[in-house]
């Protein structure tokens, strides 16, 4: 019996639309006032739910975790002396959350109302056109000049460019830089050649020396990547005393002819 009851109470997290939904559920289940949420208890229960969802999709999970952090933050602030706003009134750390919950609850409530309306409206049948052939096949001529309004070719180009820019903006800037390393900004093959050549002639050097004619930050990154690659292949050994200290690169002598530095074809 007890077991059955537990199963009934345990609600799958997937059933919640999001952290706010879960919070509302907990508030209702505990029959507490939304304006006076016992933050400690609710936070505890919320975290219990989160623990059960470990195996869930990370995207969903992260949204629940953000709320968990918010709850913990509120919980901490509740313990501290009350903050006072400009008007000298005490600020309730829960106020923002309460407002969010109320707003969400209002829309959620309306979604139920809408659902009922949809059921009623679904009782009407509509039909497609039954036009005589000639009428059906008639296409009103389009006045293209009017249609295009003020849209010109340069305008069209501008629109395209702003679409592409928006898309670009959405791209993670750091990752997108990695993409460009291979493309054009720094010719990685040339860089590799330069670095290996330098190492071949110098046998022991400071990493800074390698950067002497490095122009951009991108040059630095690529040079560093090349050194890492050489380290991996065993062509050089690298030491550094401390975080701020110089990076010392030593070429490994493998033959009398000098340093055997393998050709680096690509780092991509």
């Amino acid at each position: 019996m007890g077991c059955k009851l537990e199963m009934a109470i345990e609600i799958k997290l997937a059933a919640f639309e999001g952290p706010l939904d879960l919070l509302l559920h907990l508030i209702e289940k505990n029959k507490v006032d939304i304006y006076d949420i016992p933050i400690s208890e609710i936070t505890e229960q919320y975290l219990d739910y989160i623990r059960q969802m470990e195996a869930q999709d990370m995207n969903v999970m992260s949204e629940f975790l953000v709320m968990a952090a918010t709850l913990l933050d509120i919980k901490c602030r509740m313990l501290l002396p009350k903050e006072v706003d400009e008007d000298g009134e005490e600020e309730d750390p829960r106020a923002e959350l309460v407002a969010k919950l109320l707003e969400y609850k209002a829309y959620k409530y309306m979604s139920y109302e809408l659902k009922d309306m949809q059921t009623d409206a679904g009782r009407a049948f509509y039909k497609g056109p039954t036009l005589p052939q000639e009428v059906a096949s008639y296409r009103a001529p389009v006045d293209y000049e009017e249609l295009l309004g003020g849209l010109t070719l340069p305008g069209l180009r501008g629109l395209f460019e702003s679409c592409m820019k928006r898309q670009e903006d959405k791209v993670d800037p750091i990752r997108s830089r990695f993409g460009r390393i291979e493309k054009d900004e720094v010719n990685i093959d040339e860089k590799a050649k330069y670095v290996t050549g330098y190492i071949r002639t110098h046998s022991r050097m400071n990493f800074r020396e390698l950067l002497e004619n490095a122009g951009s930050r991108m040059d630095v990154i690529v040079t560093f990547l090349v050194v890492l690659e050489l380290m991996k292949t065993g062509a050089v050994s690298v030491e550094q005393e401390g975080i701020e200290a110089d990076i010392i690169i030593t070429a490994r002598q493998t033959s009398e002819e000098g340093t055997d530095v393998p050709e680096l074809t690509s780092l991509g």
Partner: protein
Amino acid sequence: MDRRQQEAVIEAVLFAMGDSVELGKLAEALGEEKETVRQIVVEMKKRWEQEGRGIAIAEFEDSFQMCTRGEMYEYLVRVAKTPRKYVLTDSLMETLSIIAYKQPVTRLDVERIRGVNSDHAVNRLIELELVMELGRMDAPGRPLLFGTTEQFLRSFGVKSLEELPRLNEGKWEEFKQEAEEEANLSLQV
């Protein structure tokens, strides 16, 4: 053309077009002023209802469409295929209610209110033709603005957004009272 003829033309046009017909088109067909035509259609609509006819006139913003009267449903399902009906999941309904009440609205607005990423829901509602792009907001990044469609009005049986049940502060007050009563109850227990 007498009134009876005018009504006949409206009936024929609404029947034949099947889809919703803009008031302007009806006016063009009749060679009358829009407002005159609107009056005629609204009167027809009322009379059909009173007469308990099998068909009815639905109104959406400035368009009209012929459909069967709701009461006919039980007879129709015996012989006709029921209209396509999409069961909207809770997350779609939530997203739709936010868009319906807050339009024009950006994705970010929806996300903020729901507390979860809603891109998928918004895209699905666009696919179902319940939601459409209204344009871009004049703000940094020019985010897209969304609103509801005529199909939304049709699916929810309202002729305009004004007819949607009010989302008002009063409702919030109700929630508050409910919560308080619940809280009191639990204190008494």
